[in-house]
């Protein structure tokens, strides 16, 4: 399993792997928003938590269809399905590799990008924390969506539509926790719910993803 993880990370970092794409997209969103809505601190500060979370979510969405599509096209997915490693583990490992190459960099970069949007001081910690807790759910749900649509031509569009509603709870609780922190309120409840969603996704979706892959490989 470690082999699969290191291979996926290697593939992501090498030419054409798409590493950095999510980060560049996130940077573009956060840089463009002040141009769009105006640079006044009073305008930017209230919307900063929401914009940062939406930016991170869309950046995550950008690279989802690659999770299984490349392996499906060159035939490795069939070979992985016949390898002595459960398909559930393949789905979980692929989601983990996706998180390491998109979710983790987004989490680390978000506080820096928060400065561009005049994010209030107390919210920086909450932003990093909620992204750290929430982005694994985004990768796991995304891996499930990618497994559902693998093998479809231009499946990316369908996958985005399938995955977006599943992303809504994570977005709501992540952005709420960050906004409450910015206003100096308690964040326990939304952070706990966010963690609950992530744990639920991690526990259930590898099985759902593997079942979807089995059907799509037939």
């Amino acid at each position, binding site marked *: 399993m470690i082999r699969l993880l290191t291979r996926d990370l290697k593939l992501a970092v090498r030419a054409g792997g798409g590493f950095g794409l999510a980060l560049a997209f996130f940077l573009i969103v956060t840089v463009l928003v002040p141009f769009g809505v105006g640079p006044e601190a009073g305008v930017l500060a209230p919307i900063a938590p929401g914009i940062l979370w939406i930016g991170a979510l869309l950046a995550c969405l950008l690279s989802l269809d690659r999770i299984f599509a490349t392996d499906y096209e*060159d035939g490795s997915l069939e070979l992985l399905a016949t390898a002595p490693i459960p398909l559930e583990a393949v789905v979980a490992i692929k989601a983990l590799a996706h998180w390491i190459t998109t979710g983790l960099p987004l989490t680390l970069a978000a506080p820096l990008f928060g400065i561009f949007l005049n994010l209030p001081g107390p919210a920086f910690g909450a932003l990093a924390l909620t992204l750290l807790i929430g982005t694994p759910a985004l990768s796991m749900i995304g891996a499930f969506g990618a497994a559902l649509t693998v093998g479809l031509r231009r499946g990316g569009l369908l996958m985005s539509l399938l995955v977006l509603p599943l992303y809504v709870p994570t977005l709501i609780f992540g952005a709420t926790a960050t906004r409450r922190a910015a206003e100096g309120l308690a964040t326990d409840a939304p952070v706990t719910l966010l963690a609950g969603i992530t744990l639920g996704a991690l526990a259930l979706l590898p099985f759902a993803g593997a079942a979807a892959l089995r059907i799509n490989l037939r």
Partner: protein
Amino acid sequence: MALLVLDGVGCARGGLPVLTGVSLTLKAGGALILRGPNGSGKTTLLRTVAGLQPPIEGRIEAEPDSIAYAAHADGIKSTLTVAENLAFWSGLFGTADIGPALAAFDLATLRDRMAGRLSAGQKRRLGLARLVVTGRPVWALDEPTVSLDAASVALFAAAVRAHLATGGAALIATHIDLGLDAETLDLSAFRATHAARTAFDEAFT
């Protein structure tokens, strides 16, 4: 000892039955060549044997994790080197050494070449070398000699012979003569009855 037994197996492609009542036995050291015209269900049967799709009837008996499947696509990552590609599969299948596999398919001189820079025949050889590192007894091969030149076909035949000599078995769908001492099974004899097909076809005519 039989490594693979098929008993009255039927399989479907795209929801339509293509084969029915296929029975065969593969013993250690035995090879079986599947023949049949295009569309006769060779690939479908091999995918069923590999466990990628369930049979619609009959039984398939084999030890769990005993079948190595090689499809039309080789599953090669173009941004990894030849050695990295093979090392990944050998690690996944828990076998240690990729040296013999590289030697068997004359890939030693290409080991640090990016797989994306290989020719079609070299890629095919890399895909077949993967079979050696799986360490599994039964090889299910789908048109293994596509884009191989005569010398490479000889290398492949030698690799299959070596595999059979160590107690393995092979089920090969191919159109060419590999020079193996193997039985031949013509799949056109097991074609599913036309009832299911024509009913479907009539709906569209």
